[in-house]
């Protein structure tokens, strides 16, 4: 259970809104932080699209961390967003210099023990899961997202998605995961 943090400033309101799943908080953060990120990206020969992309990714990271409870309020939100965006942008730049295929997931970092071939295979498998998630319908999609991405408890998911109780969610999650694995296997052509 994540510890609620009370802030008596503007950031606290935004964090509360993010916690409640209010997307308008992300929108507000986007407009507030656009100028410094733009000056950073454009200074490094980036484009307007790069600015938007980097900022959106930084905001998603914030959102993810706020939801899974890994966000620690040590600095202002704008500082966190700027630092995250800077990391994302520099990683993108490094990838462009190495002429590697751009990965959509900037934070799925390889552990360093795998070979490039293994990395490529891993990337393929992740992409297959992603496509399978697009194919799988609701409520499986929402259930899997709430459980694996937002890392919410069975009770919370039951409450959000209108299931009877946590056990029902548990059994439903099992079914959904099996269906997803089937789709992934099908997409990979029999590959495990």
């Amino acid at each position, binding site marked *: 259970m994540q510890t609620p943090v009370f802030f008596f400033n503007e950031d606290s309101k935004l964090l509360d809104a993010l916690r409640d799943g209010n997307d308008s908080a992300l929108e507000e953060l986007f407009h507030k932080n656009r100028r410094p990120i733009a000056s950073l990206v454009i200074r490094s020969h980036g484009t307007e699209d790069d600015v938007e992309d980097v900022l959106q990714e930084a905001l998603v990271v914030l959102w993810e961390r706020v939801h899974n409870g890994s966000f620690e309020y040590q600095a202002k939100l704008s500082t966190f967003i700027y630092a995250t965006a800077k990391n994302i942008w520099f990683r993108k730049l490094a990838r462009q210099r190495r002429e590697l295929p751009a990965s959509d997931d900037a934070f799925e970092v390889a552990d360093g023990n795998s070979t490039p071939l293994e990395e490529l295979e891993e990337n393929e498998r992740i992409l297959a899961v992603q496509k399978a998630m697009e194919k799988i319908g609701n409520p499986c999609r929402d259930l899997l*997202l709430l459980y694996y991405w937002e890392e919410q408890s069975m009770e919370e998911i039951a409450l959000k998605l209108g299931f009877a109780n946590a056990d029902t969610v548990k059994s439903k999650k099992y079914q959904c995961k099996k269906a997803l694995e089937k789709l992934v296997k099908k997409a990979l052509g029999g590959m495990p």
Partner: protein
Amino acid sequence: MSNIISQHWTTDQEKLEEFVRNKTGKKEMLLLTAHLEKCDECNKRVQEERDIQAGIRRFGRLEMKRRLKLRLRRDRSRRFEWTHVASLAAAVVIVLGAVFAIRWFVDFKQEKPLTREIILSENKEEKPAERALWIIGKVIEISDESSQVASSVEEKQSQSFADNLNETPEPEVQNELKAGEMSRSRMEESPMKETEVTVMAERKAVVKDVTSSLAKGEPSSTVRSDSESPQAAPAEVKENSKSIAQEKPEAGYHYSSDAVNSPRAMKMDKLKFGDTVGSVVKERLAQPVQTDSESLDKISIAVSDLKAQLPSLRPEEKKAAPAKRGSESIADNKFDFHDQVDTKQKSLSIAKKRRPAKNIYVRRGDMKDLPASMIKYAPSAVHTRLERTSQGILLTFYSYSIKDTAATYIEAVTADSIIVFFRNKQIAYHIPGGLGGGT
């Protein structure tokens, strides 16, 4: 195979998920990791679970990015619409402002007060009397006998006046000559000189003509009206007619109040004073007349009465006037007459100084245009519409009894009363506000 797998912890789905999500305890984590180093199958299962969870998270992030992009795009379109509406409103305001500015500029260039006056007067339902005033003129009918008497008097007066101009003046007409000289000297000084001479000469001709025609029993040919040709008149009259015709308006008779200030014109005015005065003249002249001397006597009496009824001209003569009735000579009457003319001339000249002289136009109006409520009045009353224009005073009369379309001539009696002459009738008017001034 299944036994081997079942021996491995990765077959426990919950345990596998917790391990991948780093939710297992430290001790358990060490045991599980040690098993993974020996078991490729378990390692593979863990890797699969990691890929699935990574794939779900990536999908979640992409979904989140997509949602955010969509939201930002909506926001942009909303902002664009707002700015679009704002710019449209600004454009409308600018266009309206330009239109109003142009209209204001155009109005400013035009004669502003006139335009506004018209608009305001329409809105506030201005009284019609403020534009055109209705006045009632009194018809004075001159019988043939009295006309004859008047004509004979006129003839005598004009003859003596003409003689005095050429010959040595007689004592009884010295005053008249004095008045004449005064008028001539004024004529030389005044810019109205030509008009005065014209009027005097014309009246002389008219008096002669009336006298001769009455003697023959024929209608006068030199009594001027708009419908008659001036060719039948003598050469002198023709010239006068031409000079007057130049001043004449469209249909009515044109009259300049300055022209009547000459002493000769004043003589004729004496016989045709306004409302009450005219009625006195009528009464006096209605009595049968046998001889010229008698008629002249009657006229002198009438004139004395007129003096009494015109206190504004010379108040001190009011007392003397009744004593003269019927006993004094014609010469005396003449003297009084001219004395009064001088007085009247003074009053008119004072009036002239006070207000600028105005022209008077008289024309006949169509009876259809007369309001029905006015037709009920007595037939002797001539309903007349008085309009003051920048050119002068315009009188439009409505009458069944007067057949003429325009007046033959107009005489000023006082500063605010006139008599309009037709062929056989006259109308006396009191002009509210006087002859001068106007718009």
